[in-house]
Protein backbone atom coordinates (compact mmCIF):
# COMPACT_ATOMS: atom_id res chain seq x y z
CA UNK A 1 0.00 0.00 0.00
CA UNK A 2 1.11 3.56 -0.64
CA UNK A 3 3.01 4.80 2.42
CA UNK A 4 1.22 8.14 2.22
CA UNK A 5 -2.03 6.39 3.13
CA UNK A 6 -0.58 5.58 6.55
CA UNK A 7 0.95 9.02 6.94
CA UNK A 8 -2.29 10.77 6.06
CA UNK A 9 -4.23 8.45 8.36
CA UNK A 10 -1.95 9.34 11.27
CA UNK A 11 -2.26 13.07 10.66
CA UNK A 12 -6.02 12.77 10.20
CA UNK A 13 -6.24 11.01 13.57
CA UNK A 14 -4.26 13.80 15.18
CA UNK A 15 -6.41 16.47 13.55
CA UNK A 16 -9.62 14.72 14.59
CA UNK A 17 -8.59 14.12 18.19
CA UNK A 18 -6.87 17.43 18.94
CA UNK A 19 -8.98 19.63 16.66
CA UNK A 20 -12.17 18.07 17.92
CA UNK A 21 -11.19 18.65 21.53
CA UNK A 22 -10.09 22.24 20.85
CA UNK A 23 -13.37 23.03 19.07
CA UNK A 24 -15.40 21.41 21.85
CA UNK A 25 -13.60 23.48 24.48
CA UNK A 26 -14.04 26.70 22.47
CA UNK A 27 -17.74 26.11 21.91
CA UNK A 28 -18.38 25.46 25.58
CA UNK A 29 -16.28 28.48 26.47
CA UNK A 30 -18.46 30.68 24.26
CA UNK A 31 -21.60 29.25 25.83
CA UNK A 32 -20.24 29.79 29.31
CA UNK A 33 -19.20 33.35 28.54
CA UNK A 34 -22.58 34.12 26.93
CA UNK A 35 -24.55 32.83 29.90
CA UNK A 36 -22.31 34.78 32.25
CA UNK A 37 -23.04 38.00 30.36
CA UNK A 38 -26.77 37.30 30.56
CA UNK A 39 -26.51 36.84 34.31
CA UNK A 40 -24.21 39.84 34.69
CA UNK B 1 2.63 4.13 71.73
CA UNK B 2 -0.98 5.30 71.87
CA UNK B 3 -0.97 5.56 68.09
CA UNK B 4 0.25 1.99 67.83
CA UNK B 5 -2.52 0.81 70.11
CA UNK B 6 -5.10 2.70 68.06
CA UNK B 7 -3.80 1.13 64.86
CA UNK B 8 -3.92 -2.29 66.45
CA UNK B 9 -7.46 -1.76 67.78
CA UNK B 10 -8.68 -0.64 64.35
CA UNK B 11 -7.05 -3.56 62.56
CA UNK B 12 -8.43 -6.02 65.13
CA UNK B 13 -11.89 -4.50 64.60
CA UNK B 14 -11.71 -5.03 60.83
CA UNK B 15 -10.39 -8.56 61.23
CA UNK B 16 -13.03 -9.45 63.83
CA UNK B 17 -15.82 -8.25 61.55
CA UNK B 18 -14.38 -10.29 58.70
CA UNK B 19 -13.70 -13.30 60.92
CA UNK B 20 -17.35 -13.46 62.02
CA UNK B 21 -18.86 -13.36 58.55
CA UNK B 22 -16.04 -14.16 56.09
CA UNK B 23 -18.15 -12.24 53.59
CA UNK B 24 -15.13 -10.72 51.85
CA UNK B 25 -12.66 -13.61 51.97
CA UNK B 26 -15.03 -16.36 50.84
CA UNK B 27 -16.35 -14.68 47.66
CA UNK B 28 -12.98 -13.30 46.61
CA UNK B 29 -11.18 -16.55 47.40
CA UNK B 30 -13.75 -18.55 45.45
CA UNK B 31 -13.48 -16.16 42.54
CA UNK B 32 -9.68 -16.47 42.60
CA UNK B 33 -9.91 -20.26 42.56
CA UNK B 34 -12.32 -20.02 39.65
CA UNK B 35 -9.82 -17.93 37.70
CA UNK B 36 -7.07 -20.47 38.45
CA UNK B 37 -9.37 -23.26 37.29
CA UNK B 38 -10.40 -21.52 34.07
CA UNK B 39 -6.85 -20.45 33.20
CA UNK B 40 -5.52 -23.90 34.00
CA UNK B 41 -8.18 -25.52 31.85
CA UNK B 42 -7.74 -23.22 28.86
CA UNK B 43 -4.00 -22.50 29.04
CA UNK B 44 -2.65 -25.83 30.28
CA UNK B 45 -1.25 -26.73 33.68
CA UNK B 46 2.48 -27.12 33.09
CA UNK B 47 4.14 -26.18 36.40
CA UNK B 48 6.09 -23.33 34.77
CA UNK B 49 2.83 -21.51 34.04
CA UNK B 50 1.75 -21.66 37.65
CA UNK B 51 3.38 -18.37 38.80
CA UNK B 52 1.67 -16.23 36.15
CA UNK B 53 -1.70 -17.91 36.70
CA UNK B 54 -1.35 -17.59 40.47
CA UNK B 55 -0.58 -13.87 40.38
CA UNK B 56 -3.19 -12.93 37.81
CA UNK B 57 -5.82 -14.79 39.83
CA UNK B 58 -4.53 -13.23 43.05
CA UNK B 59 -4.67 -9.72 41.58
CA UNK B 60 -8.26 -10.18 40.40
CA UNK B 61 -9.30 -11.70 43.73
CA UNK B 62 -7.58 -8.87 45.60
CA UNK B 63 -9.64 -6.33 43.67
CA UNK B 64 -12.79 -8.14 44.78
CA UNK B 65 -11.57 -8.27 48.37
CA UNK B 66 -10.84 -4.54 48.48
CA UNK B 67 -14.19 -3.78 46.84
CA UNK B 68 -16.14 -5.87 49.33
CA UNK B 69 -14.44 -4.37 52.40
CA UNK B 70 -15.02 -0.89 50.95
CA UNK B 71 -18.69 -1.60 50.40
CA UNK B 72 -19.03 -2.75 53.98
CA UNK B 73 -17.48 0.47 55.27
CA UNK B 74 -19.93 2.44 53.16
CA UNK B 75 -23.06 0.52 54.09
CA UNK B 76 -22.45 0.81 57.78
CA UNK B 77 -21.08 4.34 57.79
CA UNK B 78 -17.99 3.08 59.61
CA UNK B 79 -15.64 5.69 58.25
CA UNK B 80 -17.82 8.63 59.27
CA UNK B 81 -18.15 7.19 62.77
CA UNK B 82 -14.42 6.61 63.09
CA UNK B 83 -13.68 10.15 61.95
CA UNK B 84 -15.53 11.46 65.00
CA UNK B 85 -12.93 9.98 67.32
CA UNK B 86 -9.93 12.08 68.28
CA UNK B 87 -6.50 11.22 66.92
CA UNK B 88 -4.67 11.40 63.66
CA UNK B 89 -6.33 10.44 60.40
CA UNK B 90 -3.22 8.55 59.39
CA UNK B 91 -3.83 6.01 62.15
CA UNK B 92 -7.05 5.10 60.36
CA UNK B 93 -4.98 4.39 57.26
CA UNK B 94 -2.53 2.19 59.13
CA UNK B 95 -5.29 0.27 60.90
CA UNK B 96 -7.09 -0.57 57.69
CA UNK B 97 -3.77 -1.30 56.03
CA UNK B 98 -2.74 -3.82 58.67
CA UNK B 99 -6.08 -5.61 58.42
CA UNK B 100 -5.91 -5.69 54.63
CA UNK B 101 -2.36 -7.09 54.69
CA UNK B 102 -3.57 -9.97 56.86
CA UNK B 103 -6.58 -10.63 54.60
CA UNK B 104 -4.42 -10.52 51.45
CA UNK B 105 -1.95 -12.95 52.99
CA UNK B 106 -4.80 -15.30 53.86
CA UNK B 107 -6.02 -15.05 50.27
CA UNK B 108 -2.51 -15.74 48.97
CA UNK B 109 -2.15 -18.77 51.22
CA UNK B 110 -5.39 -20.32 49.95
CA UNK B 111 -4.54 -19.66 46.31
CA UNK B 112 -0.96 -20.84 46.72
CA UNK B 113 -2.19 -24.10 48.20
CA UNK B 114 -4.57 -24.49 45.27
CA UNK B 115 -1.64 -24.04 42.89
CA UNK B 116 0.37 -26.74 44.61
CA UNK B 117 -2.56 -29.11 44.22
CA UNK B 118 -3.80 -28.17 40.75
CA UNK B 119 -0.53 -27.44 38.93
CA UNK B 120 1.67 -30.01 40.65
CA UNK B 121 4.09 -27.34 41.85
CA UNK B 122 6.97 -28.58 44.03
CA UNK B 123 8.01 -26.08 46.66
CA UNK B 124 11.52 -27.27 47.55
CA UNK B 125 13.85 -24.85 49.27
CA UNK B 126 12.41 -21.69 47.75
CA UNK B 127 9.72 -21.16 50.37
CA UNK B 128 11.46 -18.40 52.40
CA UNK B 129 11.68 -16.34 49.22
CA UNK B 130 8.01 -17.03 48.49
CA UNK B 131 7.04 -15.87 51.96
CA UNK B 132 9.09 -12.68 51.56
CA UNK B 133 7.53 -12.04 48.16
CA UNK B 134 4.04 -12.54 49.52
CA UNK B 135 4.67 -10.21 52.45
CA UNK B 136 6.16 -7.42 50.34
CA UNK B 137 3.45 -7.73 47.69
CA UNK B 138 0.67 -7.71 50.29
CA UNK B 139 2.12 -4.60 51.99
CA UNK B 140 2.22 -2.66 48.70
CA UNK B 141 -1.15 -3.79 47.37
CA UNK B 142 -2.80 -3.09 50.71
CA UNK B 143 -1.45 0.47 50.73
CA UNK B 144 -2.91 1.18 47.28
CA UNK B 145 -6.08 -0.69 48.18
CA UNK B 146 -6.75 1.28 51.36
CA UNK B 147 -6.14 4.56 49.55
CA UNK B 148 -8.46 3.67 46.68
CA UNK B 149 -11.12 2.31 49.00
CA UNK B 150 -11.10 5.59 50.92
CA UNK B 151 -11.84 7.26 47.57
CA UNK B 152 -14.60 4.89 46.60
CA UNK B 153 -16.57 4.70 49.85
CA UNK B 154 -20.11 5.88 49.16
CA UNK B 155 -19.35 6.73 45.55
CA UNK B 156 -21.97 5.59 43.07
CA UNK B 157 -20.42 3.14 40.61
CA UNK B 158 -17.15 3.19 42.51
CA UNK B 159 -16.89 -0.58 42.50
CA UNK B 160 -16.73 -0.49 38.70
CA UNK B 161 -13.75 1.83 38.70
CA UNK B 162 -11.82 -0.09 41.37
CA UNK B 163 -10.34 -2.66 38.94
CA UNK B 164 -9.58 0.05 36.39
CA UNK B 165 -7.49 1.89 38.98
CA UNK B 166 -6.12 -0.90 41.17
CA UNK B 167 -4.89 -3.25 38.44
CA UNK B 168 -2.77 -0.78 36.42
CA UNK B 169 -1.38 0.76 39.59
CA UNK B 170 -0.51 -2.64 40.98
CA UNK B 171 1.05 -3.87 37.73
CA UNK B 172 4.64 -3.67 39.08
CA UNK B 173 3.64 -5.88 42.02
CA UNK B 174 2.04 -8.39 39.67
CA UNK B 175 5.10 -8.58 37.42
CA UNK B 176 7.53 -8.75 40.35
CA UNK B 177 5.41 -11.44 42.02
CA UNK B 178 5.45 -13.60 38.90
CA UNK B 179 9.21 -13.37 38.39
CA UNK B 180 10.06 -13.87 42.08
CA UNK B 181 7.79 -16.90 42.29
CA UNK B 182 9.42 -18.35 39.19
CA UNK B 183 12.84 -17.72 40.69
CA UNK B 184 11.85 -19.34 43.97
CA UNK B 185 10.48 -22.45 42.27
CA UNK B 186 13.48 -22.91 39.97
CA UNK B 187 16.13 -21.60 42.41
CA UNK B 188 16.94 -18.85 39.89
CA UNK B 189 18.30 -15.39 40.62
CA UNK B 190 15.69 -12.88 41.86
CA UNK B 191 17.16 -10.09 39.70
CA UNK B 192 15.90 -6.57 40.42
CA UNK B 193 12.44 -7.68 41.52
CA UNK B 194 12.86 -7.50 45.29
CA UNK B 195 13.98 -3.92 44.67
CA UNK B 196 10.87 -3.22 42.60
CA UNK B 197 8.65 -4.44 45.43
CA UNK B 198 10.58 -2.49 48.06
CA UNK B 199 10.40 0.74 46.04
CA UNK B 200 6.68 0.22 45.36
CA UNK B 201 5.97 -0.40 49.04
CA UNK B 202 8.10 2.53 50.17
CA UNK B 203 6.41 4.87 47.67
CA UNK B 204 2.84 4.01 48.56
CA UNK B 205 3.41 3.67 52.28
CA UNK B 206 4.95 7.14 52.15
CA UNK B 207 2.34 8.97 50.04
CA UNK B 208 -0.60 6.77 51.13
CA UNK B 209 -1.24 8.11 54.64
CA UNK B 210 -1.16 11.86 53.78
CA UNK B 211 -3.32 11.33 50.68
CA UNK B 212 -5.73 9.22 52.71
CA UNK B 213 -5.92 11.95 55.36
CA UNK B 214 -6.53 14.59 52.67
CA UNK B 215 -9.35 12.53 51.14
CA UNK B 216 -11.23 11.73 54.32
CA UNK B 217 -10.98 15.31 55.55
CA UNK B 218 -12.24 16.83 52.29
Amino acid sequence: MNPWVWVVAAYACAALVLGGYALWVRRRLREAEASQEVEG
Amino acid sequence: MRALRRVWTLAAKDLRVEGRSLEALVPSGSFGLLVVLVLGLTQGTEPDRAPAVLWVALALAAVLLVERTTEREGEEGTLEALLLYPGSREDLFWGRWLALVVLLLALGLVMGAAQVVLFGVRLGLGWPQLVATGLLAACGLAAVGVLLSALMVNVRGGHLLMPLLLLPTGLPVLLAGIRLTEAALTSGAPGPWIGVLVVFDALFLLVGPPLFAAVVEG
Partner: protein
Amino acid sequence: MLRAFLGGATAGLVLLGLALALWWSPPDAYQGQYVRIMYVHVPSALAAYVAAAVTCASGALYLWRRQLRYDHVAQAGAELTVLFSGLTLLSGMLWGRPVWGVWWAWDARLVTTAVLFLLYVGCVLVRGLSDDPERGRSLASVVGVVGFLDVPLVHYSVVWFRTLHQPPSIGPSGVTIAPALLVPLLVNSLAYLALVGYLLVERARLARLEAAQ
Protein backbone atom coordinates in the same frame (compact mmCIF):
# COMPACT_ATOMS: atom_id res chain seq x y z
CA MET C 1 -3.93 39.56 25.44
CA LEU C 2 -1.64 36.83 26.70
CA ARG C 3 -4.15 34.21 25.65
CA ALA C 4 -4.39 35.64 22.14
CA PHE C 5 -0.60 35.56 21.89
CA LEU C 6 -0.46 31.97 23.13
CA GLY C 7 -3.15 30.96 20.66
CA GLY C 8 -1.42 32.69 17.76
CA ALA C 9 1.99 31.30 18.62
CA THR C 10 0.55 27.80 18.95
CA ALA C 11 -1.22 28.02 15.59
CA GLY C 12 1.97 29.33 13.95
CA LEU C 13 4.13 26.58 15.46
CA VAL C 14 1.65 23.87 14.52
CA LEU C 15 1.51 25.10 10.89
CA LEU C 16 5.31 25.36 10.70
CA GLY C 17 5.60 21.88 12.21
CA LEU C 18 3.15 20.46 9.69
CA ALA C 19 5.02 22.05 6.78
CA LEU C 20 8.35 20.71 8.03
CA ALA C 21 6.93 17.27 8.70
CA LEU C 22 4.94 16.75 5.52
CA TRP C 23 6.97 18.71 2.99
CA TRP C 24 10.44 19.80 4.13
CA SER C 25 11.54 16.60 5.85
CA PRO C 26 13.23 14.09 3.51
CA PRO C 27 12.08 10.47 3.64
CA ASP C 28 14.15 8.32 6.00
CA ALA C 29 16.77 5.98 4.53
CA TYR C 30 15.22 2.91 6.16
CA GLN C 31 11.62 3.84 6.81
CA GLY C 32 10.87 6.00 3.77
CA GLN C 33 7.82 8.22 4.08
CA TYR C 34 6.67 6.39 7.21
CA VAL C 35 9.11 8.46 9.23
CA ARG C 36 6.63 11.34 8.94
CA ILE C 37 4.39 9.54 11.42
CA MET C 38 7.17 9.95 13.98
CA TYR C 39 6.49 13.69 13.98
CA VAL C 40 3.04 12.98 15.42
CA HIS C 41 3.96 10.04 17.60
CA VAL C 42 6.96 11.29 19.55
CA PRO C 43 5.70 14.84 20.23
CA SER C 44 2.31 13.60 21.39
CA ALA C 45 4.00 11.14 23.76
CA LEU C 46 6.04 14.02 25.14
CA ALA C 47 2.89 16.12 25.47
CA ALA C 48 1.08 13.30 27.27
CA TYR C 49 3.80 12.95 29.90
CA VAL C 50 4.01 16.72 30.38
CA ALA C 51 0.23 16.86 30.84
CA ALA C 52 0.39 14.00 33.36
CA ALA C 53 3.14 15.79 35.30
CA VAL C 54 1.03 18.95 35.39
CA THR C 55 -1.96 16.93 36.60
CA CYS C 56 0.11 15.34 39.36
CA ALA C 57 1.59 18.64 40.53
CA SER C 58 -1.67 20.59 40.48
CA GLY C 59 -3.57 17.68 42.04
CA ALA C 60 -1.09 17.61 44.91
CA LEU C 61 -1.34 21.38 45.27
CA TYR C 62 -5.13 21.15 45.36
CA LEU C 63 -5.08 18.49 48.07
CA TRP C 64 -2.66 20.61 50.08
CA ARG C 65 -4.10 24.11 49.63
CA ARG C 66 -7.73 23.32 48.70
CA GLN C 67 -7.89 26.17 46.19
CA LEU C 68 -10.16 25.62 43.22
CA ARG C 69 -7.79 27.08 40.66
CA TYR C 70 -5.38 24.18 41.15
CA ASP C 71 -8.19 21.73 40.59
CA HIS C 72 -9.20 23.40 37.33
CA VAL C 73 -5.68 22.89 36.03
CA ALA C 74 -5.67 19.28 37.27
CA GLN C 75 -8.97 18.62 35.50
CA ALA C 76 -7.63 20.06 32.24
CA GLY C 77 -4.38 18.13 32.63
CA ALA C 78 -6.12 14.79 33.15
CA GLU C 79 -8.25 15.22 30.03
CA LEU C 80 -5.23 16.25 27.98
CA THR C 81 -3.24 13.27 29.25
CA VAL C 82 -5.98 10.95 28.02
CA LEU C 83 -6.13 12.79 24.71
CA PHE C 84 -2.41 12.84 23.96
CA SER C 85 -1.63 9.36 25.26
CA GLY C 86 -4.55 8.06 23.20
CA LEU C 87 -3.14 9.81 20.17
CA THR C 88 0.31 8.36 20.93
CA LEU C 89 -1.15 4.85 20.96
CA LEU C 90 -3.14 5.44 17.76
CA SER C 91 -0.26 6.93 15.82
CA GLY C 92 2.05 4.23 17.18
CA MET C 93 -0.24 1.58 15.74
CA LEU C 94 -0.47 3.35 12.39
CA TRP C 95 3.34 3.52 12.37
CA GLY C 96 3.97 -0.01 13.63
CA ARG C 97 1.67 -1.77 11.18
CA PRO C 98 3.47 -0.75 7.93
CA VAL C 99 7.01 -0.62 9.42
CA TRP C 100 7.09 -3.63 11.75
CA GLY C 101 4.14 -5.51 10.30
CA VAL C 102 2.24 -5.47 13.60
CA TRP C 103 -0.28 -3.06 15.09
CA TRP C 104 1.08 -3.55 18.55
CA ALA C 105 4.51 -4.52 19.89
CA TRP C 106 4.96 -5.39 23.55
CA ASP C 107 7.48 -2.64 23.88
CA ALA C 108 7.86 -1.20 27.37
CA ARG C 109 7.15 2.35 26.23
CA LEU C 110 3.93 1.27 24.52
CA VAL C 111 2.71 -0.68 27.54
CA THR C 112 3.61 2.19 29.88
CA THR C 113 1.71 4.64 27.69
CA ALA C 114 -1.28 2.32 27.61
CA VAL C 115 -1.24 2.10 31.42
CA LEU C 116 -0.97 5.89 31.64
CA PHE C 117 -3.94 6.18 29.29
CA LEU C 118 -6.08 3.77 31.34
CA LEU C 119 -5.19 5.35 34.68
CA TYR C 120 -6.09 8.82 33.48
CA VAL C 121 -9.31 7.57 31.88
CA GLY C 122 -10.09 6.43 35.42
CA CYS C 123 -9.05 9.83 36.72
CA VAL C 124 -11.43 11.64 34.34
CA LEU C 125 -14.30 9.23 35.08
CA VAL C 126 -13.93 9.34 38.85
CA ARG C 127 -14.58 13.08 39.01
CA GLY C 128 -18.17 12.73 37.85
CA LEU C 129 -19.07 9.79 40.08
CA SER C 130 -19.55 11.51 43.39
CA ASP C 131 -22.68 13.54 44.03
CA ASP C 132 -20.60 15.94 46.04
CA PRO C 133 -18.39 17.94 43.63
CA GLU C 134 -15.91 18.68 46.41
CA ARG C 135 -15.39 14.97 46.93
CA GLY C 136 -15.17 14.33 43.20
CA ARG C 137 -12.33 16.84 43.04
CA SER C 138 -10.40 15.09 45.82
CA LEU C 139 -10.89 11.72 44.14
CA ALA C 140 -9.61 12.92 40.79
CA SER C 141 -6.64 14.65 42.41
CA VAL C 142 -5.55 11.55 44.30
CA VAL C 143 -5.86 9.37 41.22
CA GLY C 144 -3.87 11.92 39.20
CA VAL C 145 -1.09 11.98 41.77
CA VAL C 146 -0.96 8.22 42.31
CA GLY C 147 -1.12 7.50 38.58
CA PHE C 148 1.82 9.70 37.73
CA LEU C 149 3.99 8.44 40.61
CA ASP C 150 3.32 4.90 39.49
CA VAL C 151 4.42 5.46 35.88
CA PRO C 152 8.22 5.04 36.31
CA LEU C 153 7.69 1.87 38.35
CA VAL C 154 5.39 0.44 35.70
CA HIS C 155 7.87 1.37 32.99
CA TYR C 156 10.90 -0.28 34.56
CA SER C 157 9.04 -3.37 35.66
CA VAL C 158 7.73 -3.87 32.12
CA VAL C 159 11.23 -3.34 30.69
CA TRP C 160 12.71 -5.95 33.02
CA PHE C 161 9.78 -8.30 32.69
CA ARG C 162 10.26 -8.44 28.93
CA THR C 163 14.01 -8.14 28.52
CA LEU C 164 15.11 -10.53 31.25
CA HIS C 165 12.98 -13.24 29.74
CA GLN C 166 13.12 -12.93 25.99
CA PRO C 167 14.90 -10.78 23.39
CA PRO C 168 13.96 -7.10 23.53
CA SER C 169 11.11 -6.15 21.28
CA ILE C 170 11.63 -4.27 18.05
CA GLY C 171 11.58 -0.53 18.31
CA PRO C 172 12.94 2.62 16.74
CA SER C 173 15.51 2.95 19.54
CA GLY C 174 18.61 1.78 17.69
CA VAL C 175 18.33 4.36 14.95
CA THR C 176 20.28 7.57 15.40
CA ILE C 177 18.49 10.57 14.01
CA ALA C 178 19.93 12.62 11.15
CA PRO C 179 19.75 16.43 11.49
CA ALA C 180 17.30 16.71 8.59
CA LEU C 181 14.89 14.59 10.61
CA LEU C 182 15.81 16.10 13.95
CA VAL C 183 14.79 19.67 13.07
CA PRO C 184 11.18 18.79 12.17
CA LEU C 185 11.02 16.56 15.24
CA LEU C 186 12.14 19.37 17.53
CA VAL C 187 9.83 21.93 15.93
CA ASN C 188 6.89 19.55 16.17
CA SER C 189 7.73 18.77 19.79
CA LEU C 190 7.71 22.48 20.51
CA ALA C 191 4.41 22.85 18.64
CA TYR C 192 2.80 20.05 20.66
CA LEU C 193 4.08 21.52 23.91
CA ALA C 194 2.60 24.88 22.94
CA LEU C 195 -0.64 23.11 22.05
CA VAL C 196 -0.73 21.42 25.46
CA GLY C 197 -0.09 24.77 27.11
CA TYR C 198 -2.81 26.51 25.10
CA LEU C 199 -5.40 23.77 25.63
CA LEU C 200 -4.51 23.62 29.32
CA VAL C 201 -5.14 27.34 29.75
CA GLU C 202 -8.40 27.30 27.79
CA ARG C 203 -9.76 24.16 29.44
CA ALA C 204 -8.88 25.43 32.91
CA ARG C 205 -10.63 28.72 32.09
CA LEU C 206 -13.69 26.77 30.96
CA ALA C 207 -13.67 24.81 34.22
CA ARG C 208 -13.46 28.07 36.17
CA LEU C 209 -16.37 29.62 34.28
CA GLU C 210 -18.50 26.53 34.68
CA ALA C 211 -17.69 26.26 38.38
CA ALA C 212 -18.75 29.88 38.85
CA GLN C 213 -22.20 29.26 37.37
